[in-house]
């Protein structure tokens, strides 16, 4: 990797997610590739977390702004749909940052090859309260404040919290 590409990558990796600002796009795993073509033309590949993720436009604008600010005149942000994003791509640093911000990080993503079995009982997860670390937590809803989160509550300290759900 050339030094210029390395520099572009470092700039792109600093950009944070608009809805989870404690995470960089690299930590979230949506930054798929950064390449420099010629002297100052950067091509960045990002992948959506969910099909309707409204943060994509903001991510793209932030990448363009940061890279142009770092002297790259032409910034091209492309969409990478394949392979589909999985929470398994959230880095250990990203998981630590989520927990530090009071958001429970995801467990291992379920396999999605073949038919997906119906589950009529609430998804069983080993979720610890990000506030008090108690394992006594219960699911409130599989859908939360953003597409990627479920809502939980801690039955020990009674605090509600978000959990990044596994996909």
């Amino acid at each position, binding site marked *: 990797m050339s030094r210029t590409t390395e520099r572009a990558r470092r700039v792109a990796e600093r950009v944070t997610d608009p809805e989870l600002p404690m995470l960089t796009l690299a930590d979230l795993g949506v930054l798929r590739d950064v390449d420099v073509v010629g002297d100052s033309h950067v091509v960045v590949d990002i992948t*959506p977390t*969910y099909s*309707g993720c409204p943060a*994509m*436009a*903001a991510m793209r604008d932030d990448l363009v702004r940061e890279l142009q600010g770092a002297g790259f005149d032409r910034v*091209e942000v492309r969409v990478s749909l394949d392979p589909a994003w999985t929470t398994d791509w959230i880095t250990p640093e990203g998981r630590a940052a989520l927990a530090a911000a009071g958001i429970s990080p995801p467990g291992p993503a379920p396999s*999605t090859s073949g038919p997906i079995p*119906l589950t009529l009982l609430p998804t069983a997860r080993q979720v610890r309260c990000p506030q008090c670390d108690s394992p006594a937590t219960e699911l409130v*809803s599989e859908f939360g404040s953003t597409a990627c989160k479920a809502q939980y509550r801690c039955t020990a300290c009674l605090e509600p919290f978000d959990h990044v759900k596994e996909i």
Partner: protein
Amino acid sequence: MNEHIHTTPEDEHDSAYSGLLVNDAHWAFGTDFEDPLAGVDTSIPDGVDAPVLAAYALMLGDDALVMSHRISEWTSNAPDLEDDIALSNIALDLLGQARLLLARAAKADASVVPALPEGSPAPPEDALAFFRDAHDFRNVRLAELVNGDFAEAVVRVLLFSVWRLATFERLRSSRDHVLAAVAAKGVKELAYHRDYSARWFVTLAQGTDESRRRLVAALDALWPLWPELFDTHAVEAAAAGAGVGVDPASVREAAEGVLDQVLAAADVPRPEAPRRAGVLGRTGRDGMHGEPLSLMLAEMQSVARAHPMGQW
């Protein structure tokens, strides 16, 4: 006006407005057109008829768009906050699928996109969503019905997502890279939609007499539109034959199997109502829709049509 939101440094952290007054660049949405398929390989696979691929993508896209809009009408109207959020999330996932699929249709065959005034900034997927009339929509009729009560929403999301998930599970191996990628991502989303509605189905069926009565009534009312989901339209047959689409008839067994599991858990018998006939054999896939779709589109499309040159 400004003095009303003026804050001192001491109370700044209490002001909901303070964050809006700095770093505007962070929220520079919509400064230019964003292609949802920018950089994606949208070449047509060998041996595939581009108009067939476009028509097939429109069908899947219209299903998602119309269903998304109906579910989005629940926003701020659901029985409680958690289900309001859940239904809004489901609508958002489907809207995202619709956007990619309509964009795919436009890329495969630009002639499906309605002509807009020269210089209109509306991207092709918006032109398809907002500038077609009801008879050009290819969604199944289940998606377009006027909303009923919460039980009706639960049953409709269940029927729709059981069928769509079974379809997308197979669509993952489409020879079209875009459809395969949309399906691979959509499967994960639809699994959450299906399981959410299936749990509510069992809960309402096993709840009070009133909740069960409403659930069974909703199932009876929607049941006549279930068989239409498995009809094979000529476009779907051609897309399946070319290896880019899924023949709806081929997912019937899988979908019925899942639905039977839910019915058994809820102890609700399969309804016996006959299927709703089409008009001279034509149904949603042929552009034959009921009045509810026209009324829905009149509302959904009114702003975009009034401002075809609008920049959002």
